[in-house]
């Protein structure tokens, strides 16, 4: 499975750590399948951001595909 890598910076910082976000491979999983996806996350605590366009776009397609597997 491929997910689009984020191309633009996000306006968010980690509220708890006050740290800026960094891009890196984060594992996401569904119904027993796991994929590394390039995602923004807090460089200190690791809190991961899933942006709206990813959640409602490619992610839904992949979910449907895995549900029909």
């Amino acid at each position, binding site marked *: 499975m491929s997910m689009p890598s984020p191309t633009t910076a996000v306006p968010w*910082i*980690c*509220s*708890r750590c006050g740290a800026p976000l960094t891009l890196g491979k984060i594992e996401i999983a569904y119904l027993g399948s796991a994929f590394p996806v390039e995602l923004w*996350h807090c460089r200190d605590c*690791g809190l991961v951001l899933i942006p709206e366009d990813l*959640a409602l776009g490619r992610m839904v397609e*992949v*979910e449907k595909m895995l549900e*029909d597997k």
Partner: protein
Amino acid sequence: MDQKELRELESQCIQEHAPPCTAACPLHVDVRGVLAALVDESFDAARQILVKRLPFPGIIGRICEQPCRGVCNRKDAGEALEIAALERACATFGALASPTRRIPARGKRVAVIGGGLSGAMTALQLTRKAHSVTLFEATERLGGVLWSTPEELLPREVLVAELELALRDVDVRLQHPVAAMDLKTLRTEYDAIYLGVGRSAAGDFDALLVKVDPVTLATPEAGIFAGGRAIAETSSFIGSLGSGHRAAISIDRYLQKASLTASRENEGAYATRLFTSLEGVTPAPAAIPANPALGYTRTEAVAEARRCIQCECMECVKVCSYLQHFGSYPKQYLRQIYNNLSIVMGERHFNILINSCSLCGLCGEVCPEGLNMAPVCRDARQLMVAQKRMPPSAHDFALRDMAFSNSPLAALARQAPGAQRCDYVFFPGCQLDASAPEHVVQVYDHLRKTLPNVGLLLRCCGAPADWAGRHDLFEESIAGFRADYVALGGGTVILACSTCYQMFKTHLPDVPVISLWEIFDAHGLPEHPSLPTPLALAIHDPCTTRYERDVQDSARSVLHTLGCEIEELPFNRERTECCSYGGLMWLANRTLAETVVRRRIAEHPADYVTYCAMCRDFFADQGKPALHLLDLFYERDLPTRATRPSPRFSQRHDNRAWLKRSLLANIWEETMSEAHVAAIPLHLSEIAATRIDRRLILEEDIRKVIGYVESTGNCFRNPDNGHFLAYYKPANVTYWVEYSSAEDGYTIHNAYSHRMEIVVQPKAQEASV
């Protein structure tokens, strides 16, 4: 569904059965296909389709007895198609197909005795199957009785040319009579013999011809077959061709040592089971050729072919947007569903087909054979659940909605205040509770004034679980009802929702039920304001009342008593349509569901009235003014009420909870014993609320996210506008909320969700914020 059940179901779908013309033709000419090609003005293609079955179109097109015309459905809408004349046009204007590559000879030799139509047909078919054929004809020419037709009807050059062309690969021996006594010798030289000797020479072969098997055309003598006019009860040209064709099949099987008798049903002419409606077909007479002797011109042939209605059934597909949506018809769908359920590894492309059906049963009602896809899809869903193959997203939301209705926040069972038993139990149903809770209060007041000992039961009937294939949850729901019902002391259950009515009648046959509309009809209507006159409303019967004539009648009777002018929809009563709530179609396939609703609301210009809360809400949401029957009793501003949008999902929950709290407080003077958590106030703009509702995110989900942030501090912050963005996964779905702090709670800017899980969780802080 096992193979046997699949085949039984498939056999009920007649869409693939032959049209009457093809079935009535001993050769099963694909008349429909030929005429479709003519409509496209493709005479070459038409001829190619034709000669696959009918090798002598120029001859037969002039003299065929046309059993096809007698059964042509067009005869009831003008006149039967001029099929033979069109075949002749194919022969006249269509190019000959280039000869197909010959299969290597198989080394078997067949003698055909008699060069009439049946012998010529047998010889041709056997050469096509790569057998070496010798044809013995007693006279100096091929054609037999064809020579007794008038020459102006069948020009001799057509007769000679077409037979010669067809038999170019046959060793034809003219002026070579064969007598019965010659057969023994012939039999030693040839592997099989066909006797197509015609009536005049039949006497000589009587010993063989009196005992010909009508199915295989085998004579008592092994390897010798007979057909044509010598054995026909009624003789016809097309019948002779038919027996030649049949004999060729038998001889080929004989030579291959295959069964002569297996699978020969419907080989000759038969009556098809295909049903074709003539609804909407404008009667039209046959095209008449300007010059009858020449037959149709190209233009005339195309005009005549255009009258073909291309017989097919599709009765269910015509009336069902779901069956249309997937581009095929039940026979194919059954196979797809069966295969989908049988897949071990690989993608299950047809999950969406199984989950999109509204289970309304209209297909079964309109099907000439009664094939109903609803039980097929419902059983398939149960099997998918049992196989653990049901997509988790398919029905989750509705099942959680049902769980809410049956939770202590919304469910309630009480005897009437001061009563020791229940003669009646009012069961309004979770969606009426959700859509119009104030009407539930008013109806319950009315019922207690009208009838003795009316208890109240607020909960869900379990339909969402039944539709989702969740037998476990359905049983649990039914058991919950039973426990409450027993505790109340029984009584007749008064149902305001037709889905509940259907569930009760099907799954709780021992519980006496009656619809609220029958109660109104029998015991008097609630007090109500006088209605504006005239008030014409088109009545929509909920699909779950399809076979509940009494319920439908009582709803009409109530409307009549109120002074309404009732307009009937074209699809009503047992042919009514689903609003897309049924079977959870609205959740499993939202695009299709919107198509279904739009189709239904376009059927009549009048405002609709119905007696199901979901139907009303779905119609209104797509812009159709629609009233619930109860609106006529309890609402004064009907035009406004009719355009009222469906309460949002969060509101539906709140309405159920409000209903319980309010009834408990006002009727039983109880406060809710269940701890009622003070909700964090949320502020949503209309746009945000609508968007979030479309995404099936409830305010209670949003509160959980904020509650999680309040306890962990895990969230993002936008330094520019001070918004927060956070996620939380209470069960299977991860909810994201963008919000900001307000004076008395939170302003919600956006929310979205996904099902994929973030595997890595943030490092915990030493002390939570």
